[in-house]
């Protein structure tokens, strides 16, 4: 068994939440740059320029990329040959607490659906845990904004609605969301499993590398087709029209019940802030 010190989990979580809120990763910046070069609408081009200028200002380290510094989502993978003393969830939340304080990040978590009292330190993080083989701990950490999350949805289609049913659902969802979720978007889609599994698949999909594709031939084609069809919707950056509505479409799937075709769409804004930490 490999012994892990939970203080390292706290330190790395803190570092990660600060880093992602001030720096967009290079592959995303280059996708936005390419989109800007191709964009034919003058207004949309100027919005894409603003987005690029914004990340230049933010990476100086004084002002976060976006005022919505998000809810922290952690996909936590714990190797079966790892041991530690104490509570790993507490260690992650301590990292969030310190990071949001020392990084001058907005605290967006409220305690209760109706009294809306702020927890004042952006905890608790939403943590999904998986046991994996090996002696590592992997944390995929995101700061997920409320605007794009509000436009996300889970729908239970019937099996015979098939690929066309999924396409229609995705296109309608993106079109109806318009400028609200801050396009250009990264669209994470989960197909299969059951009600809650599809949502988690969609969330995991938005953590994927921007330049990868599904290994499944049918799913890869659906990713490519939806990428083109979403951009053909003409929603455009911030909903003002144009060629750039999405930057990537990522689909994860899972076996499901014979009666079901669950589809979850998790929308990610252009300020896709996430990173991976391996211990």
């Amino acid at each position, binding site marked *: 068994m490999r012994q892990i010190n939970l203080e390292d989990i706290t330190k790395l979580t803190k570092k990660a939440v600060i880093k992602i809120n001030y720096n967009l990763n290079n592959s995303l910046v280059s996708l936005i740059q390419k989109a800007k070069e191709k964009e034919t609408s003058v207004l949309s081009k100027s919005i894409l320029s603003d987005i690029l200028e914004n990340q230049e200002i933010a990476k100086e380290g004084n002002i*976060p990329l976006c005022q919505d510094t998000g809810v922290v989502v952690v996909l936590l993978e714990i190797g079966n040959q790892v041991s530690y003393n104490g509570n790993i969830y507490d260690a992650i939340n301590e990292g969030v607490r310190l990071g949001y304080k020392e990084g001058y990040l907005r605290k967006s978590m409220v305690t209760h659906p109706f009294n809306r009292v702020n927890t004042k330190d952006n905890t608790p993080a939403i943590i999904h845990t998986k046991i994996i083989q090996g002696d590592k701990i992997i944390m995929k950490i995101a700061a997920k904004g409320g605007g794009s999350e509000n436009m996300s949805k889970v729908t239970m289609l019937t099996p015979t609605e098939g690929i066309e049913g999924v396409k229609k659902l995705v296109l309608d969802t993106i079109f109806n969301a318009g400028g609200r979720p801050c396009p250009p978007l990264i669209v994470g889609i989960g197909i299969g499993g059951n009600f809650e599994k599809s949502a988690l698949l969609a969330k995991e999909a938005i953590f994927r590398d921007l330049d990868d594709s599904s290994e499944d031939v049918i799913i890869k084609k659906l990713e490519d087709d939806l990428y083109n069809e979403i951009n053909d919707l003409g929603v455009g950056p911030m909903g003002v029209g144009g060629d750039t509505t999405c930057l990537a479409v990522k689909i994860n799937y899972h076996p499901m019940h014979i009666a079901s075709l669950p589809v979850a769409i998790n929308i990610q804004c252009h300020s896709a802030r996430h990173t991976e930490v391996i211990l």
Partner: protein
Amino acid sequence: MIRLNTPITNDNIKELKVGEKVLISGTIFTARDQAHARLINEPNPAFDLNGSIIFYVGPTPKREGFAIGASGPTSSYRMDKLAVPLMEQGLKVMIGKGNRSEEFRLEMIKNNAVYLIATGGAGALLSSKILKSKLIMYEDLGAEAVYELEVKDFPCFVAYDVYGDSIFKGNQ
């Protein structure tokens, strides 16, 4: 491009047409969900709504030596119903992001007001156009409190104008 100085008059509103870039200078106020819910029942607001501009934003905490933290717009649709009584009291310009309800748009036209959008997710860039910020109401709301902002050339686009046009083509 149009330069707009506060407070806003009815003549200013007439000049603003969908798609145009607007640079705002002067004093504007922040308010989002919870501040709206309180403002509509407020007998004595700490600022004059007449001719005012409200920016839908909840900034990040400011660092020492800075006017404000990251300050990009939040989604406007959540304020659609709550904006109506404020427009009736003279609110002229709202700055946010995304499309809004048809009911809101018609009320906005009736009240001779406009809706502008700023670039969502450009909180660092937009904060550089804010020279000063001062807490004026509802300190307990934290990031959702009402702040008075002094802005210079704050960049927006006209999203809905009084002539019935919308920047959101096919998706009003």
